[in-house]
């Protein structure tokens, strides 16, 4: 059982703060590192993997610092985001070479095990140059798993995968987590994290915005006020009708129609059609204006 510990860790590049005073523990099981692009997720993973020194604070893996400590790679596997691999090697040669670099007792056997785990046996004798992006991702996972590490770090592992490959990868990571390994993966897609991990760490602008059980955080996310832009044949009349509803926070008449703030996404979407029909108003546009991940995460920070 391996534990990664962050204590007041910050990392900056010149004047730019990439990670800001983070304290968290990541233990066995699957943990999702969620956040919009540029939130500091890769910086976190690179620091854990010993490829970046914290500017401040301490980061340890089972009590040992990871920076300038190649010994951690006996217990840790890394799947980087960039899909640059040695394209002139076959999948089997790549994974076997990695096994040899780890000085494993039987590199061929370990490689066959890891390739089987990622279901790459059929394509193992083809050059990596001929692989699809999803296959490259899987052969990278096989190489990262070849020494049977306790900790697996994956940077945006589902990028470029088709739905079937995505499901298979999720299933594999779940199994590895159930076996007691510490699996940490980054993603900017909420649904990926939702399906795979019970525990999440939400990063926004270098800060840890939320941490813990996914369902509790999801509730926070869905109960936030939502903003819609509505255009109709009679905006003023619709505004009057909406003001009386308890799920309506605010209604504003703007040059581009109505801006409605509601506390209940589902009720508003259901009722808007009923109201416009009853009031004999024609609805021409209904647009959620704050659905980007950044706005969801921004709300979490404000909380």
């Amino acid at each position, binding site marked *: 059982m391996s534990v990664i510990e962050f204590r007041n860790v910050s*990392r900056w*590049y010149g004047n*730019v*703060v*990439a*990670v*800001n005073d983070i304290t968290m523990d990541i233990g066995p099981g699957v943990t999702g590192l969620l956040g919009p*692009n*540029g*939130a*500091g*997720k*890769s*910086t*976190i*993973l*690179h620091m854990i*993997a010993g*490829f*970046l*020194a914290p500017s401040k604070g301490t980061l340890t893996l089972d009590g040992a610092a990871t920076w*300038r400590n*190649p*010994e951690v*790679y*006996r217990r*840790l*596997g*890394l799947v*980087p985001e*960039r899909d*640059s*691999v*040695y394209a*002139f*090697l076959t999948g089997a040669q*790549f994974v076997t*070479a*990695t096994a*040899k*670099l*780890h*000085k494993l007792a039987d590199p061929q056997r370990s490689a066959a095990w890891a390739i089987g785990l990622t279901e790459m046996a059929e394509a193992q004798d083809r050059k990596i140059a001929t692989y699809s992006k999803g296959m490259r991702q899987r052969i*990278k996972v096989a*190489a*990262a798993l070849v020494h049977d590490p306790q900790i697996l770090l994956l940077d945006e592992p589902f990028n470029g995968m088709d739905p079937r490959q995505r499901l298979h990868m999720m299933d594999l990571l779940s199994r590895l987590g159930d076996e007691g390994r510490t699996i940490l993966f980054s993603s900017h897609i909420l649904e990926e994290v939702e399906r795979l991990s019970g525990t999440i760490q939400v990063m926004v*602008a*270098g800060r840890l915005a939320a941490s813990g059980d996914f369902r509790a955080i999801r509730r926070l996310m869905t109960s936030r006020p939502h903003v819609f832009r509505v255009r109709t044949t009679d905006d003023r009349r619709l505004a009057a009708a909406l003001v009386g509803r308890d799920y309506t926070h605010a209604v504003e008449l703007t040059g581009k129609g109505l801006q409605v703030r509601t506390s209940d996404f589902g009720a508003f979407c259901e009722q808007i059609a009923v109201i416009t029909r009853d009031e004999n108003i024609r609805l021409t546009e209904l647009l959620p204006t704050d659905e980007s991940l950044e706005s969801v995460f921004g709300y979490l920070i404000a909380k």
Partner: protein
Amino acid sequence: MLNPVIAGITVRATLGRRRALLFAIPAVVLIVLTVVLRATSPTGVVWPANVLGTFGFSVLLPLTALIIGTGVLGAEIDDGSVVHLLATPVRRRDVILTKFAVAAGLTALFAAVPELVAGLLAPNSGKLAWALFVGALVGSVVYSAVFVLASVLTTRAIAFGLLYVAIWEGVLSNLVGGVRILSIAHYALGVANAIYPDQDLQAGLGLPTSLILGTVITLGGLYLAIRRLQTFSLTGDPA
């Protein structure tokens, strides 16, 4: 110390890239030039020592070493594949020493061997050919250490190397006497001249100076490259 897995991957990667065609160009230029000069036999010009020695050691040899030396590790750093090597318990020292050994070996193959071939093709220069071959071997080793270091220090190692070869080795070391003490081409010429003394080689340094300074630069370059790779960082996306 040397890791055979890394050596194998490096040789395949270096020879498999399109830039591998570039390695052969300086060697072909040298041999073609030798054949043309031999056929035309210009009178009053002692060309083997000038062409194979001064021109070969200060232009063709460093260009070959530059392309190979910056490619063995720099290309993997540029495309990110080096992470697959470094995320293993292999010591960073072994990574640098293996990359350096491959670079020096390939440079010797693509620069020192053509020097020998061209030397043997040139008229009346049998002993000179072997002296130039040994000098080129020494040059391959020292240049490789410098260019491997450059590739871990900067992503613009090729540009740095081209400026260094063109200005320092190509012009200044042949015009300004004091510069020779920091010229790898002159270390190589010093070794060649010690084996087969020839005034036309215009060797500015003696054997002891050449060997001592060549060793210092090689070991110093490798030490700095190891230190640099030990603190190799991947940058994430700043927020």
